[in-house]
């Protein structure tokens, strides 16, 4: 099989598996969707059910006026829950869920029914509670009426008592006067008898006089009584009395007239009877009135007590009413029972109390009805509470079911989702596994020949002569590759042989070149040392020559003086001239020898620096002077001027030998290359300190400059434009190496043809030997040994 087909096979398996998974997942996801919407429904149902419960609770707690709203909201929630439950039943896949949904619906239906009953019961109870208040008000109204009546009655009693008192006094007065009259009548009767039995004469006259006074007394007494009776409006009785008195007086007149007619006892008897009767009647009336007044007083006292008792009942009723209202408001059945118990004796108490019969029955009834109502209300409340409890039980059941439904459906949705995920994961893993396995097999079928091919090719690469790759015989892409590789290896072997040979030649050349370069550098170094030595010798030669000449001259003078001495012809002038000559000579000797010593010293220093390679702290300006001095002999052979400008206070701690070589090389480079033969040039060496810790050395000439084509190469080894003049092309290379490696600085060149060249060297004021060493070691091997 071709690799293309195999790869197609490897790619195809996962795609097929993925497609399969996708199809199944799609189906399952649809299911999961259903489950999820079921769960969402169940969640809504749960909320609805919770809503019904909340509204029911609010309904119970609400004041009667606002209950309707709670009931409405309850119905809205219940209706919504019902609709959703039906929807859920249609959606739910699990028969268990369907059953729970149905059960929840049944519970909801019962809950709604109970709610309706509760609403009725509550409305009834609210009505009863309102009626309780009305009844209490009735009681109060009744007692108020009774009190008003009693107040009116009290006024009447007072009037009646006043009237009774008046009649009482009247009866008493009548009785008193009647008794007086009776006594007067009896007295008159007595006198009458005396007159009757007394014969005419003085005695009779006395008796008659006595009778006259007795009759007068009787008349007076009767007159008082008549007046009393008239004043009381008893005219007829008064008239009758007056008549009787008159008749009796007439009879007595008849007696005193002594007409001899038979005595008529009638008038006297009638008068006496009348008095008796009046006394009897009025005395009994007096007692009767007395009794009446006493009864009225008793009644007024008891009426006050009645009023008090009535008020007490009203107050008790009010208290009970208040307690009841509270108990009813809080649906406290126990308290209602307590109140019922406490109020049980109340009807009997009210019945037993001497309260107005007008309201007593009404009060007993009101209390009875109130108690009945309370009992009914209490029972209603208990039933309501039972109903509430029952509803709570249903609610718990219902909410439990809704919750379970919610959980179940959510779990279902989750589990389907999870299943889908797991299935996707498994399917993917399985697909990948199959794919991987297939891929592995396919890859192996590709890679093992490929690897063999690779090994062969590698071996071939290592050992091109190892022979051709045998897989070239294969018919697939590998075979083609092997054939190509064989061809390539063959070509490669051929070319590599050529190259190796060329390289070997180049290597050999390079080695030679390196050796040459090192030799050259060494030679250059030695050359510059030689130049130095030559310069120094020349310099020393002059003072030494002069000293020699002087010493020779002095020797001659001394010889001449010694001759004269021996001759004895030494004169003052001879001595003076000798002293003058010796002084002058010794002065010259001293100067020239000092100069020689200085030169040696200077040379020694430069040479020591060159040789030691140690770091040293030195003062730049002085040190530059020394270097230039050592260059003096070489420079003096040229027309060019060198000026040095260096601030006095710059100290360096660096390799003075290396720096001296740099300065020497640059100056000599300028002297050698910068100026045409016929022209005197100017070289300026300036030291500045552009920033702390570093010194800048600028070497500028006003020479011909360096062309752009050469400028980049001036630091390359062996680059020179004056090879013809014997330049090695190593001077600036050495400078470059020393500056960058040994001295830790940098060097740059600025130049243009015809406008001079400027080398700018930046040096650290202090270079640590380690750094320098490291720098030195890292430097090009060419710089080694410098």
């Amino acid at each position, binding site marked *: 099989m071709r690799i293309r087909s195999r790869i197609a096979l490897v790619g195809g398996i996962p795609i097929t598996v993925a497609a399969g998974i996708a199809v199944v997942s799609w189906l399952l996801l649809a299911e999961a969707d259903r489950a999820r919407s079921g769960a969402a429904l169940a969640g809504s149902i749960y909320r609805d059910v919770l809503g019904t419960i909340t509204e029911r609770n609010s309904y119970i707690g609400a004041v009667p006026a606002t209950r309707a709203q709670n009931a409405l909201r309850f119905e809205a929630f219940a209706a919504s829950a019902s609709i959703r439950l039906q929807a859920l039943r249609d959606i739910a896949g699990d028969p268990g869920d369907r059953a729970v949904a149905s059960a929840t619906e049944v519970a909801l239906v019962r809950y709604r029914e109970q709610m309706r*009953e509760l609403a*009725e*019961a509550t409305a*009834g109870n609210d*009505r*009863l509670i309102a*009626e309780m208040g*009305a*009844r209490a008000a*009735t009681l109060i109204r009744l007692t108020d009426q009774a009190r008003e*009546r*009693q107040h*009116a*009655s009290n006024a*009447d*009693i007072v009037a*009646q008592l006043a009237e*009774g008192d008046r009649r009482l006094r009247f009866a008493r007065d009548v009785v008193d006067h009647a008794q007086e009259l009776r006594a007067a009548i009896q007295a008159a009767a007595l006198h009458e008898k005396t007159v009757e039995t007394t014969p005419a004469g003085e005695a009779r006259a006395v008796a008659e006089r006595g009778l006259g006074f007795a009759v007068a007394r009787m008349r007076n007494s009767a007159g008082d009584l008549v007046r009393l009776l008239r004043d009381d409006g008893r005219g007829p009785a008064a008239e009758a009395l007056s008549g009787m008195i008159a008749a009796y007086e007439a009879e007595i007149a008849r007696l005193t007239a002594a007409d001899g007619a038979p005595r008529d006892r009638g008038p006297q008897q009638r008068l006496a009877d009348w008095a008796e*009767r009046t006394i*009897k*009647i009025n*005395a*009994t*009336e007096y*007692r*009767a009135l007395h*009794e*009446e007044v006493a*009864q*009225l007083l*008793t*009644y007024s006292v008891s009426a006050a007590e009645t009023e008090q008792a009535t008020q007490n009942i009203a107050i008790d009723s009010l208290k009970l009413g208040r307690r009841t209202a509270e108990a009813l408001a809080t649906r406290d059945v126990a308290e209602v029972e307590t109140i019922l118990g406490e109020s049980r004796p109340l009807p009997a108490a009210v*019945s*037993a109390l*001497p309260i*107005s*019969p*007008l*309201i*007593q*029955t*009404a009060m*007993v*009834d*009101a209390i009875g*009805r109130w108690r*009945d*109502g309370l009992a*009914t209300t209490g*029972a*209603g409340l208990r*039933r309501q509470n039972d109903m509430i409890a029952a509803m709570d039980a249903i609610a718990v059941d219902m909410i439990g079911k809704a919750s379970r439904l919610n959980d179940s459906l959510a779990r279902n949705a989750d589990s389907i989702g999870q299943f889908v995920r797991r299935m996707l994961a498994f399917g993917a893993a399985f697909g990948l596994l199959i794919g991987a396995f297939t891929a592995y097999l396919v890859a192996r079928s590709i890679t093992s020949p490929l690897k063999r091919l690779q090994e062969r090719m590698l071996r071939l690469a290592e050992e091109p002569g190892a022979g051709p790759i045998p897989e070239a015989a294969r018919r697939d892409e590998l075979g083609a590759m092997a054939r190509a590789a064989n061809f390539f290896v063959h070509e490669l072997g051929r070319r590599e042989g050529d190259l190796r040979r060329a390289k070997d030649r180049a290597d050999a050349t390079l080695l030679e070149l390196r050796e040459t370069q090192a030799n050259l550098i060494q030679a250059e170094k030695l050359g510059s040392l030689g130049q130095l030595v030559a310069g120094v010798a020349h310099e020393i030669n002059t003072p030494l020559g002069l000293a020699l000449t002087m010493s020779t001259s002095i020797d001659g003078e001394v010889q001449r003086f010694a001759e004269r001495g021996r001759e004895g012809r030494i004169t003052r002038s001879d001595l003076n001239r000798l002293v003058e000559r010796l002084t002058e000579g010794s002065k010259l000797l001293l100067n020239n020898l000092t100069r020689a010593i200085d030169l040696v010293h200077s040379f020694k220093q430069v040479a020591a620096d060159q040789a030691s390679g140690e770091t040293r702290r030195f003062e730049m300006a002085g040190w530059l002077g020394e270097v230039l001095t050592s260059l003096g002999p070489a420079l003096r052979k040229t027309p060019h001027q060198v000026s040095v400008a260096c601030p006095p206070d710059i100290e360096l701690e660096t390799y003075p030998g290396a720096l001296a070589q740099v300065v020497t090389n640059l100056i000599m480079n300028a002297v050698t290359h910068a100026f045409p033969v016929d022209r005197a040039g100017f070289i300026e060496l300036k030291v500045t300190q552009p920033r702390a810790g570093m010194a800048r050395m600028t070497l500028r000439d006003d020479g011909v400059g360096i062309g752009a084509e050469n400028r980049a190469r001036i630091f390359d080894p062996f680059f020179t434009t004056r090879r013809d003049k014997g330049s090695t092309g190593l001077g600036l290379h050495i400078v470059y190496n020393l500056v960058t490696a040994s001295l830790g600085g940098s060097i740059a060149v600025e130049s243009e043809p015809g406008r001079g060249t400027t080398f700018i060297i930046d040096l650290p004021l202090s270079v640590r030997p380690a750094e320098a060493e490291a720098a030195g070691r890292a430097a090009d091997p060419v710089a080694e040994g410098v």
Partner: protein
Amino acid sequence: MPIRSWRPAVLGLALALLAVPAGAKTLVFCSEGNPESLNPQMVTTTTGMNAARPMFNNLVEFKPGSTELVPSLAESWTVSEDGRDYTFRLREGVRFQANAAFTPTRTMNADDVVFSYLRQWKEDHPFHKVSGGGYDYFKDLGMPDLLEAVERVDGRTVRFRLKRPNAPFLASMAMPFNVVHSAEYAEAMLRAGTPERVDEEPIGTGPFSFAGFQRGVAVRYRAFADHFAGRQPIEQLVFSITPNPAVRLTKLRAGECHLMAFPNPADAARIKADPALRLLQQEGLNIGYMSLNVTKKPFDDVRVRRAVSMAVDKAAIVEAVYAGAGVAAKNPIPPTLWSYNDAVRDHPYDVAAAQRLLVEAGHPGGFETELWYMPVSRPYNPNGRRMAEMIQADLAKIGVRLRLVTDDWGAYRVKLQAGDAPMALFGWTGDNGDPDNFLNVLLGCTSARPGGNNIAKWCDPSYDALVREAETSLDGDKRVALYRDAQVIAKDQAPWVPLAHSVVFMAARKEVTGFVMDPLGRHIFTGVDLTQ
């Protein structure tokens, strides 16, 4: 289903509540005294009868304001040829009242009628001895001796068989003691071990049901909604017990009661003048008398009795106690009652003659005895005490010293009927418009037994023969003659000093309508209403 049972309860309550403000009319009657019992079978005073009356019905009743008999619980009746069988056809669907302890399960039937009679009649009846079992009226009328059988023919038919014809029998059936009780209630109470509740908390078929009795304070009733003749216009009826007429009047004027019994005749003018009040008056079918207990010395001597009769100044009594609203009496029956013998000559008021008689009787220095007087005002005697005091004054003239004695009204009656009082003020208002109701019940030998209404305990064979004959006779003229003769004997033997026939006064507030005074002294509240 708790709810179902609950709704009607609420509904009922609501209806009850609605009913209260609309029909909460309370009629208060200021009555004159405590009823001796609430069971009419056990009372003989009009006070007791009136207090029990609103709760009960009889087989036949007197039309209010007259002595005409009309059907009540019996819708019809027949009398056998020989006058010994009375068959009553009972009204159907008559309900008994209910109370806390009892709710009737059936309507009134023959068993209730039979029970009501047998209780009084048969001494071995389980209820005969309950509550003391006096049944004085039943006995005074000779019922035990008269009845041969009381039979339940069927549920709606009862037959009374008499041993002999009895002229006033039908009228007796209308009397308070012949009310119909609930046999079912009695049975229930007997089972409950509280048979006396039948008498203490009576249940009848009357227009008002019992609501409470507070001795000395009030008897309370409630309109019985299921009364066969319909509900009463007033909701509550109260007898506010107020013995003193002045206090009664005060209460009436204050509006604490709407009706009052027996105002002091002296106050009649004042009541007439009060624009808020109405004075009702009627010549009473009554007699106020002083009995002389013939079983007690010296009243066993007819001369003493006559002397006492002559010493009492009836005119002064009529003038002072009755305030002119009455006439002096000479016979035991009022002049308005048929067979009144106006030919009888009263013992004259003659102190001297009285003294003579006493001397004859061996009491030249007089004697000392007790005169009992009633503590309450009666229609026939507005003021017993004053009357007693006046008599005391009168008899003092013949040397008779009277100690005045009284007792609580119920006890007073019991003691009088027991024969304890040598002299006693008493009286009677006819219960059925038959002379027998006076002449037999009050003076016949039957009621002369201890406990009987004949408080003089006078038993005169010739007199008794006359009234007994009159009782059994169905011939009106003959009865008139017999009673007229009986009155002659009564006058001659003077067991009583007949004092006065009164004009009975009642006073009502102007807003009371429908109240009719009754010649039989009944206070009938059927149809009484209050207008505002």
